[in-house]
């Protein structure tokens, strides 16, 4: 039988020393979470990158156009 406390201590060395961690995160839940979080995190990264790329091209595109509004002084 797996000793979950060893796993938990390996992941949470200082917190478990405080006796803080009182929930059993579950080994399968832990592993699956790492997988989902990695994919979901990559999703956020891709979405953020895509926004940057889009903003870059919009800037380029706008530079090529005559400004329609002049700044009021």
């Amino acid at each position, binding site marked *: *039988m*797996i000793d979950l406390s*060893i*796993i938990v201590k*390996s*992941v*949470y060395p*200082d*917190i478990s020393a*405080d*006796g*803080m*961690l*009182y*929930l*059993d*995160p*579950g*080994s*399968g*839940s*832990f*592993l*699956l*979470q*790492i997988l*989902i*979080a*990695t*994919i*979901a*995190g*990559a*999703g*956020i*990264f891709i979405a953020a990158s895509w926004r940057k790329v889009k903003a870059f091209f919009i800037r380029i595109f706008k530079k090529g156009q005559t400004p329609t509004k002049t700044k009021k002084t």
Partner: protein
Amino acid sequence: MSKMENVSGSFRDPNGFLFTRGKTLYRQVNKAYQKHYKLLMTSGLYSRLVDDGLLVKHEETSQSPLNQTLAYKVIKPETIGFISYPYEWCFSQYKDAALCTLSIMKHALEFNMVLKDASAYNIQFLNGMPLLIDTLSFEKYQEGYPWVAYRQFCQHFLAPLALMANTDIRMSQLMRVYIDGVPLDLASSLLPAKTKFNLGLQAHIHLHASAQKRYAGKDIKKVVQQRKVSRMAFSGLVNSLESTVKSLDWKPEGTEWAEYYSGTNYTDTAFESKKTLLEDLISIAKPKSIWDLGANTGIFSRVATSQGITTISFDVDPAAVEINYLESKKAKEKHILPLLLDLTNPSPAIGWANEERLSFKQRAPTNLTMALALIHHMAISNNVPLPSLAEFFSRLSRYLIIEFVPKEDSQVQRLLVSREDIFPNYHQEGFEDAFKAYYRVIKALPIPETKRRLYLMERH
């Protein structure tokens, strides 16, 4: 010296616990939690959450702790009038409680903290809105570490909500059986196949259940050490849970009671008269809090709340409770709390030593109980003898407003259509005799254009 005792449901967390002194509730914060508590209070997270109505307010007190050796501080949380449980929530209440938890988690991350638990029992409704009542649920975020409460969130929130939305609304009652949330393998087997095509449910329920089964008893130490969860990945996980919860929906339709009022024999005059009479009776008793039993969508509960009286509006029908809650949310009502309750089998005391979660009766007393158009369902549909009903109501509150519906009423006739009339004592005199053993009648009024009577009674 006033009586002190631990609150029975508050024992799991070594960081502190709830206790009562006299009639006041306190929370002891233990030394083990000191650095996390300080961070919560000084980082700005506490103020942000309290300002947003997501966390219960508290004040630090000079009260002596219950356990001196462990203690760091004693705090006094704001009082929650009525503690409700997940199996008493309608779909939208449950969904709002889940979203409240995730919203707190997102705020916490901004302040370098995380939720170290995600128990549905930590969420309560105050002034119509869900909020976290456990001040000790936060800990310092450490880059790379996964969310320790992920499994608990899926079991306490996502699985029940997915089952309510996709299998049957009554699946919320599984929470009454499983104190730490619905086991994911059970949820996975009960959910229809179509949910495997929902990315969020596939990942957080179905795959999650398979992973639990596959890795039970296996050494994953090396994998866990090598793979860390970045802050972005952590946020991605929380966002994914949030969008999955938001995608779940349930519409109240086709249940027995949702259209009850359109099917009653009340004329408009009778209906309005009943409201006026009720208003008068409530004014005589002047209660601070009311339990309205069999409240349907809360029309008569609102006669009480319009007088500023906090009212818990119980009904057995998930659709009626859903309609009631959505209405209270839309109108931003602060005094009403709609809840699901089967009076013929009220919420029992559950959990460790049968003391973790209180039964319906243990959460009494209130000041006044309303039982309108209810007695025939209890006495005739459920065969409860009238003296037993009177005794039960008398344990809930000092005052009782009860409507007697005689056999001649078409609603009672409907109940007797398919069964033999074995209720020789079910008549006005029998009713009054049974209730007079426990109560004195303050006022009894006939409801115009009906054969029914409304009583205000006070317990002996």
